[in-house]
């Protein structure tokens, strides 16, 4: 009896978290009421409030689950990047993820982050943590490439990581607003071109530059940089 009940309780908690995460992604935190989450997750009101005293705590728990997923590389998008191919996948899988929702949603983390106004320091701190993990994973790749001499020496890995996260967020917003993956993909492909232009020639295997519409060398100013 005790076991079955606590098992039930665990699954109810997880169901609430999953439902809330989905609703926050779909319509934002502000537009989602506890009532909606209770209804959509099929738990009782009492059960809901037993697990989560209020909405703020639930938001925090949802964001913590996002943080864990990104940390452990179990998010829908992989942030553990160890090659240029991985980096390309990183960019494109964001758009692929968006397509699953017919381009009606942006990034779950960006959507909540956009709502972090002056009074919402708790949410903002949670989002900051997630963004920092994303950035450090990306920066790790750039550091590794730099160490191997495959990236220009004067580059700041943190800056490149900021550039990656920002472009992906902006591209997804563009995709959501236009309900079209084309501008989102165009933006991330330009970003990739930019990053690859920093690589020294030998580090990007031929054939792995498929994302570029044209060979890197045909590009006016970029070849100078790559040299």
């Amino acid at each position, binding site marked *: 009896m005790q076991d079955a009940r606590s098992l039930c309780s665990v699954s109810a908690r997880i169901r609430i978290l999953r439902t809330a995460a989905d609703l926050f992604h*779909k*319509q*934002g935190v*502000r*537009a989602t009421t506890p009532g909606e989450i209770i209804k959509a997750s099929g738990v009782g009101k009492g059960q809901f409030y037993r697990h989560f005293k209020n909405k703020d705590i639930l938001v925090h728990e949802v964001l913590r689950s996002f943080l864990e997923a990104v940390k452990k590389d179990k998010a829908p998008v992989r942030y553990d990047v160890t090659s240029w191919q991985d980096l390309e996948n990183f960019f494109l899988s964001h758009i692929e993820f968006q397509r699953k929702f017919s381009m*009606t*949603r*942006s990034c779950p983390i*960006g*959507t909540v*982050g*956009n*709502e*972090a*106004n*002056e*009074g919402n320091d708790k949410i*903002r701190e949670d*989002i*900051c943590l997630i*963004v920092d993990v994303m950035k450090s994973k990306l920066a790790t790749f750039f550091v590794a490439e730099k160490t191997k001499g495959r990236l220009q020496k004067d580059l*700041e890995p943190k*800056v*490149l990581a*900021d*550039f990656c*996260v*920002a*472009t*992906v*967020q*902006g*591209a997804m*917003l*563009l995709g*959501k*607003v*236009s*309900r079209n993956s084309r*501008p*989102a993909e*165009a*933006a*991330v*492909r*330009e*970003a990739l*071109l*930019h990053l690859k*232009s920093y690589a020294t020639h030998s580090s990007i295997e031929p054939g792995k530059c498929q994302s570029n*519409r*044209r060979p890197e060398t*045909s*590009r*006016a*100013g*970029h070849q*100078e*940089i790559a040299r």
Partner: protein
Amino acid sequence: MRSRKVNGETTRLRIIRVAADLFHKQGIRATSPDQIIDASATGKGQFYHYFKSKEGLIHEVLQAQMEALRMSTGFVNTEINSWQHLEHFYAAFVKLQKSFNMSRGCPIGTVGNELNEGDELLRNDVNLIFEILKNKLSAFFIKEKAQGRLSAEADENRMADFCIATLQGAMLLGKIKRDARPVEATLKEALLHLRRYATNPEAAK
């Protein structure tokens, strides 16, 4: 009679201005009509006389922002005829964000991010604003290309998409971090990328 009409227009504009500021500050969902009525010192009857619903008001706010961007009468000069103008275009957004201590994102992007499947009218408004900005940007790139100053391989539309995406993403990141550095760093990288399409990078400075 005439002055009443003038007063009416002043009230309408005041409501739009106050609403635009609240939407920018806290988003459309977190802003109630009552808050706007309070902050604009308007009567409830007056408010609903001008705006039938909150959605109608958001639509009017976006229309006003669209006009300001189209006519270049707002905080940013959207007439881009040189690389320096493009740089100033980016800088105007950063300046706006800094004026709010990095606590707000882009006024347009903030609303765009909050939209969901049911908001077709408003999504259309935000999309139109992005299209207007993109057209202004791509027009510059097309002009540069026509004059042989841009690589033949450069794709003006993709470059414009990239401009808007980097700008929006950078501002969102800046708001989340309450820090202008990632914004400036991202936009600097974006400009570097765009300028490398110039046939004479030196002249593009």
